[in-house]
């Protein structure tokens, strides 16, 4: 079967059981402009009556259902139309700097990133600590931020078997993304270093330290080879 030439440029919509549906913007580059349109789409779809929560991911959006509709066509049509009309929503937040210890016991998978990328430890640290990383979305666990802006040369596949427990503060790479664990838990990503920062407090409003539109910077505190 031949796909239409334009098919690659169309967003995809798929089901997550009867609990939610997933909207994915076309492309794989995780561009900030696309993410800003996802933020705009989330704001719009979050107001629809059948939607409980509109949750941005990386260039995608999950809509959890307050009540799953009997016929899906209507919400799918609305979603495609809203995407076509969505203008980038620039969110300007604050910049937070995190000191990072790269390698050693706190970066057990740094060697795997070296092996996969062919870069040296120093090159990896340099490329990882240079960019400003915009917070695209929160997810994974309380207070965790998905970041854009990683140097694509650092991309390393997620681990074949997830690690059962990595500590809070772990700085890791999964595919073309990087992030910092906000608390101890399982992960399929490659841990390359660690930092100490409190990302979540349920007693605060909002409970998460960072939100989409904020920016993170990693400062090299130490490199253990």
């Amino acid at each position: 079967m031949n796909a239409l030439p334009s098919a690659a440029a169309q967003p995809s919509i798929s089901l997550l059981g009867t609990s939610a549906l997933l909207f994915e913007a076309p492309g794989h580059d995780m561009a900030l402009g696309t993410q800003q349109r996802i933020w705009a789409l989330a704001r719009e779809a979050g107001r629809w009556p059948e939607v409980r929560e509109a949750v941005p991911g990386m260039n995608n959006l999950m809509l959890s259902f307050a009540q799953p509709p009997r016929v899906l066509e209507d919400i799918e049509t609305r979603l495609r139309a809203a995407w076509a009309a969505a203008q980038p929503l620039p969110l300007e937040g604050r910049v937070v700097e995190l000191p990072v210890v790269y390698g050693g016991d706190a970066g057990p998978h740094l060697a795997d990133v070296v092996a996969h990328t062919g870069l040296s430890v120093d090159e990896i640290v340099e490329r990882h600590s240079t960019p400003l990383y915009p917070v695209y979305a929160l997810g994974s666990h309380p207070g965790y931020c998905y970041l854009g802006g990683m140097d694509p040369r650092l991309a390393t596949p997620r681990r074949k078997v997830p690690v059962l427990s990595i500590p809070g503060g772990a700085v890791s790479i999964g595919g073309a993304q990087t992030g910092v664990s906000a608390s101890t838990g399982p992960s399929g990503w490659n841990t390359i270093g660690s930092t100490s920062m409190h990302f979540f407090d349920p007693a605060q409003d909002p409970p998460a330290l960072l939100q989409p539109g904020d920016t993170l910077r990693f400062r090299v505190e130490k490199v253990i080879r």
Partner: protein
Amino acid sequence: MIEILSASALATVQDLGRVGALQWGVGTSGAMDPLALAAGNLLLGNDANAAAIEVPVFPFQVRFGADLAIALTGADCAARLDDVPLLPWWVVEARVGQVLSLGVPRAAGHWRASRAYLCVAGGVDVPAVLGSRSTQLRGAFGGHEGRALRQGDVLCAAAPGIGRCGSGFGLLPPALAMPLQLDGVPAMRVLPAAEYGHYTEASRAAFWAGEWKITAQSDRYGYRLAGAALEAANPVEMRSHGIVPGVIQVPPGGQPIVQMRDAQPSGGYPKLGTVIEADLWRLGQAPIGSRVRFIEATWDDALDAREQMHAWLADARRLVELHRRQRARSAS
């Protein structure tokens, strides 16, 4: 007052789950068998969403520091109140000083459940955090001090005392009222997800035809299954996206992981399908080491099953109210 006498941990306080906090990265948590929790609450005249104690490891014992109406649902644990055997899915009045003992779950035909729910009049009285009383283990908040229960912990019921909600009645468990199995193996319906088509035809066929063993590396976060390795025709690196309990992820190793109630609210492994909301309780009750089967469902199948689940709960509520009215009449 309820004092935890058992050292065996992993029991937690749960309600039906935390919704509306995904934007901060907070997953739903909540009872692994929401039907058992809701039914236990209805038996006591509680809100269906009241908090209860979920018990996954046995034996488990508590002592009552005051008279209290309780309902035991979920796994049939050959429960005893002091020396008196209790029926499963039944309301009883516990007296001050009595000890409730839950034993190893018993099988009923092909069905063997693994988690019991101790529901109490008014619900377990813990503060709601971000809209729920469920324990958020990863975030260490909600439930009782954000953690699993320990020996010596003391919990309070929101409506202590007896005589208010009646006792000596129960419900037929949904595993008997709505059984679902394939070739004598407990089954769950699955709606295919975005990457279903990425798997080879042989792998897809094997997924539906095979038995899947629930490995020892399974808990409230997820069930790691063992069976025929599932092979993607074209492996892909995904962008992280929202997921829900029930999503079946397939890491590159080819052995699927079903996301359960403490699952992360987002992930990046390819998704073969989602165990439908209406059958998630069946999987939540499947013991480690047991085997399950999956049945392919359509959107309409999944919605019908969801309606059947809600109808079962509505029926349970009606039956309990009927019983209570009759009891009130005969007492007057």
